[in-house]
C-alpha cells in the first residue's frame, strides 16, 4: 500500500454528507495541496457509501472504506481462541482501572496472539462461554437477548477495526474520538505514526444525547413510574463511547478543539493540557471582503436570514416565531436559506407554522442556495440552533460585515463576544440569545434594526474579529506547522 503523509479518519461524514465537518475536511485538503492525504472513511455499512458529495481533490492519493456494522460474518473462519487468552480477558474485564492508554496496546496484542477477530467473537464457543460467565458472575438480572446483541454491537466494531489493514502514514489525523479515534490510537500504539485528534463537536457528548433518546436500546425501566437507575444498556453504550474517547485522548499527540468551551470539556474528560490546542474554524476571507459595503434599510424592510439545513437541531421554528414577533414591531423581510430535504417532515412543519402565523408575505423558504449571493443581500444572520460547535455560516456572515445573532451553545458566544484578550477588545459582533427564545431573538433583531449606530459598531467588530482569528490561511498554517512538528515534511508543490 502506498505511503501517505497524513491519513484522515472521518466517521460517517466526508465525502458522503455535507455539513460542518465535511466542508472543513474538504477545505483542509485543498488548503494543504503539498500534503499527500489518505482518507479512511468509517461508515456503518455498505449502504451508507453512496455518492460522494464533493469532488475529491487530487492530493488525496488513497481512499479506504471501513464498514463498522457490516455483518459479513458468513465468510469468516471458525476458530477457537486459546484458553490462556480467555483468562487474560477475564482479568481485564475484572478491573476497569486498566482501561486507558496501555489498554489499546493490550487489546491489540491479545487479539493478535489469540487471532480473535470480529467473526470469532461472534462464533467461537470460548467467547460464548465467556459471555455467559460474565453475565452470571456479575449477577445480571436483565434481558439476555439484549445482553448478547449489545455485547456484539459494542465489541464487534472494535475487533473489526483491529483487522483493518492500516495504510502507512506519518500522521493519523482523526476528526473525532469514537471509532475513528480508536483506529488512530491503534495505529499510534503499533508505532511508526503520530496521532492528531481534531474534535469539532464533542463526540462522546453527542453520543450521550443520542443514547438517552435512543429507542433501539432496551430500557428495562420503560413503562414504570419509578426508575431507580440509568437503564442498563444505555449505561453500557455511554461507557463504551467514553472508553473509546479516553483511549483516543490518551494516545493522541495533539488534541485540537475549535473553541474554548470544547477545549475545557476535553480537559475535563482527561485530555492532557500540554497536548491540547485551540484552532478555530476559518474561512477564505478574500471571498467575502467585497460584500462589506454599507447596508441601508431606511427605504426597505430589514432583511433577516437563517442560513442552514432545516432540521430540528437548528430549531428553525424559534426563528419563525421570532420573525413573527419582530414583524409586529417593524417592517422586516425574512429568509430561510438551506436545504429542506434533509428532514422533510420537520421542514413541512416549519412551512405550516409560517403559514399559520400569516408570514407568507414576510418569510420566504429559499431552499439550498449559494450562501455568498445571499450574504450580499442580507442585513442580519440569525442562528437559533440548540447545538453547534463553531458554525461556519456565522464566520462567513461576519466576514461579510454582517452582525449575527446566535444562541448560547458551543462556540457561538465566543464567536460573537470574543474569546479572550485582544479578541474581546474588538467588542461584540452581534447578540447572544438563550436557546429556544423567540422573544429574545425578536428583541435582538429589533434592537439591531432600530439602532444603525450599534449595527455599524458590531459590523466593524465582526470584520476585525474574523480578520484577526478566523482566516482560513491561519488554520492551514497552524496545521501545516503541526504536521511538520510531528515529522511530516512534504515536498514543495511544483
Amino acid at each position: 500500500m502506498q505511503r501517505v503523509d497524513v491519513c484522515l479518519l472521518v466517521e460517517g461524514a466526508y465525502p458522503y454528507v455535507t455539513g460542518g465537518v465535511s466542508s472543513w475536511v474538504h477545505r483542509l485538503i485543498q488548503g494543504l495541496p503539498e500534503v499527500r492525504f489518505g482518507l479512511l472513511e468509517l461508515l456503518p455499512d455498505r449502504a451508507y457509501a453512496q455518492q460522494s458529495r464533493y469532488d475529491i481533490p487530487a492530493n488525496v492519493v488513497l481512499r479506504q472504506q471501513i464498514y463498522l456494522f457490516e455483518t459479513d460474518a458468513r465468510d469468516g473462519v471458525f476458530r477457537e481462541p486459546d484458553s490462556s487468552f480467555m483468562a487474560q480477558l477475564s482479568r481485564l474485564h475484572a478491573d476497569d482501572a486498566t482501561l486507558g492508554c496501555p489498554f489499546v496496546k493490550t487489546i491489540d496484542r491479545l487479539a493478535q496472539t489469540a487471532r480473535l477477530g470480529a467473526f470469532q467473537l461472534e462464533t467461537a464457543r470460548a467467547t460464548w462461554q465467556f459471555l455467559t460467565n460474565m453475565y452470571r458472575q456479575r449477577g445480571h438480572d436483565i434481558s439476555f437477548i439484549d445482553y448478547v446483541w449489545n455485547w456484539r454491537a459494542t465489541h464487534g466494531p472494535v475487533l473489526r477495526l483491529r483487522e483493518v489493514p492500516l495504510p502507512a502514514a506519518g500522521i493519523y489525523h482523526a476528526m473525532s474520538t469514537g471509532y475513528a479515534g480508536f483506529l488512530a490510537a491503534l495505529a499510534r500504539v503499533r508505532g511508526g505514526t503520530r496521532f492528531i485528534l481534531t474534535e469539532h463537536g464533542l463526540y462522546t457528548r453527542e453520543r450521550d444525547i443520542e443514547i438517552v433518546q435512543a429507542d433501539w436500546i432496551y430500557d428495562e425501566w420503560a413503562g414504570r413510574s419509578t426508575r431507580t437507575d440509568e437503564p442498563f444498556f444505555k449505561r453500557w453504550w455511554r461507557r463504551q463511547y467514553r472508553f473509546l474517547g479516553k483511549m483516543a485522548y490518551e494516545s493522541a499527540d495533539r488534541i485540537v478543539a475549535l473553541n474554548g468551551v470544547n477545549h475545557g470539556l476535553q480537559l475535563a474528560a482527561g485530555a492532557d493540557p500540554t497536548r491540547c490546542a485551540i484552532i478555530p474554524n476559518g474561512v477564505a476571507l478574500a471571498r467575502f471582503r467585497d460584500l462589506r459595503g454599507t447596508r441601508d434599510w431606511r427605504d426597505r424592510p430589514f432583511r433577516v436570514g437563517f442560513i442552514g439545513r432545516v432540521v430540528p437541531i437548528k430549531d428553525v421554528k424559534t426563528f419563525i416565531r421570532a420573525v413573527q414577533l419582530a414583524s409586529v414591531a417593524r417592517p422586516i423581510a425574512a429568509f430561510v436559506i438551506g436545504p429542506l430535504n434533509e428532514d422533510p417532515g420537520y421542514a413541512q412543519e416549519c412551512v405550516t407554522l409560517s403559514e399559520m402565523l400569516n408570514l407568507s408575505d414576510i418569510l420566504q423558504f429559499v431552499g439550498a442556495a449559494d450562501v455568498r449571493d445571499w450574504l450580499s443581500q442580507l442585513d442580519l444572520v440569525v442562528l437559533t440552533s440548540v447545538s453547534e460547535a463553531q458554525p461556519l455560516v456565522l464566520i462567513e456572515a461576519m466576514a461579510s460585515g454582517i452582525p449575527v445573532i446566535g444562541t448560547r451553545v458551543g462556540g457561538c458566544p465566543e464567536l460573537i463576544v470574543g474569546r479572550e484578550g485582544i479578541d474581546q477588545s474588538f467588542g461584540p459582533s452581534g447578540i447572544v440569545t438563550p436557546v429556544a427564545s423567540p422573544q429574545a431573538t425578536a428583541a435582538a433583531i429589533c434592537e439591531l434594526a432600530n439602532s444603525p449606530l450599534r449595527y455599524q459598531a458590531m459590523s466593524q467588530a465582526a470584520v476585525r474579529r474574523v480578520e484577526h482569528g478566523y482566516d482560513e490561511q491561519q488554520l492551514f498554517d497552524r496545521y501545516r506547522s503541526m504536521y511538520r512538528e510531528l515529522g511530516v515534511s512534504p515536498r514543495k508543490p511544483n
Partner: protein
Amino acid sequence: MAGIGFTLRRMLNEGGILGPLKAFHYAVIITSGPWLISSLSLAVLSIYGALGAESHEFEIFLALVGYALAASLINVGTIHQVASRYLADRLYENQPEFFAPAFSMLLAGLLLVQTVLAVLFFTQVPLPLAVLVASLIMLLAISGTWLAMTFLSAAKDYRAIAWAFVGGGLVAIVASINGGQHFGLTGQILGFTCGYLFCFATLVVRITIEFGLPLVRPRHLQTALVRFWPLIVIGFAYNLGVWIDKILCWYHPNTRKVVVGALHVAPIYDNAMYLAYLSIIPALALFLVRVETDFYDTYRTYFSILLGRGTLNEIEAARIRMRDTLWRNTALILKVQIPLSALLILGAPAIFHALNLNWASIFVFRFGCLGALFHALHLMILIVLLYLEYRIEALSLALVFVTTNAAFTWLAFDWGNAYLGIGYTIACGITLVVGAVMLSSALDELDFHVFVRQPLL
C-alpha cells in the same frame, strides 16, 4: 456522524434467530404418513395375494405398485421439507396467496421428473403399452397425493387429509378388484389408481378452497430451494435410506425374483418388511400427539422467553424443561412400543400362521420389527433436530442412515438368508445411537446454537 444509531437499530432487530418460531411443522404425519400408508397398502395387497389371489398378473401389479410407491416417496420426500419450510415462511409473512402457485409449480416439476424417470425405466420393462401408461398414471397420482398432503399439513388440515385417505382407500379396493375382474391387469392398476386420484382430487380441492387458484408467481421459491439445500439433501437421503435395503434386495441374486424385465421383487424380504413397519404406528402416533402438545409447548415457551427478554436463568430453565419433556415422552413411547415390538417378535409364528405368510420371511419380520423400533426413534430425533434448526446435524443423520442401511444390507447378503434383514436392524441401531448423541449435545448447547450458529446457516 449521523447514521450510526440507525444502523445499530437495524442490526439489533435482525436477529436471524426467529427461524424456529416460524411455527412450521416437520410434522411426523408428513414425514412418516405416506410411508406408513404405502406400507399398509403393500402389506394388505400382499396378504390379499397370499390368501389366494396369487397369479402372475397380481405379482406384476404388486411390483408396479411397489415401484410407484418407492419412486413417489423418494422424490416427494426430497422436496417435502423444503416445501414445508417455504410454506411456513410465507405463512409467517402472511402471504398465503403464494401457496397455490408454489403447489402448482412444484407439482409440475415433480410430475415432469417422475414421467422422465418412469419412461426411462419402462424401456427396460416389456409390458403392454396400456399397462405401462396405466402405471405412469398411477405413479403421477400417488406423487401428486403426497405433495398435496405436504401443503395441507402446513395448513394443519389433518381432518381433510384423513378423510381423503379413508375415501381413497375404499375407492382403491373396490375399483381395483372390479377393474381386475373386468379389464385384467390394466383395469386393476387403473382401479387402484382411482383411489389415489380420488385422494389427490379431494386434497387439491381443499387446497383451492383454502388458498385460491394459482394466479401469481410463487415469490422466493427459488431462493428457498437454494438457501435450504440441506433440507433437500436430508429429504432425499432419508427417503432413499428407507428404500435402499428393499431396492438392493430387488436386484441381489440371493433375494430377487424377476417379474418382467427390470421389474423385480423380493417377496421373501418386501412383504415381511412392509408388515414390520406397521408395528411402529403406535410409537409414531404417540409422538405425534405428544409433540403437538407437551414438547411443542415447552419449545414455544423457550423461544418466547428468549425473545421476550428473559434472563439467562429463565432461558436455561425453559431449555431444561424442554429437554426433560422430550426425554419423558421418549420414555413413555418406549414403555408402549418396546413391549409391543417384543410381543410381535415373539409372536411372529402366530401372525405368519394367521396371515398365511411365507415362513422363510419370519426372521426378516423379526429383524424388521426390531429395526423399525430403532427407526421410529431416529425418525423422531431427526424431526426434533429439524425443529431446533440443527440442519447440519439432521443432514449428517440422514446420510448415516442411508449409507449404513446400504452397507449393512449389502454385507448381510453374505451372511446367509437367516440373517436377511439384519442389515436394516444394524443400520437403524447405529443411526439411533448417533442421533441420540447428537440430540443430547444439541439440547445441551441449544442457547449457543440459537444465538450463534443458527443465524449463520
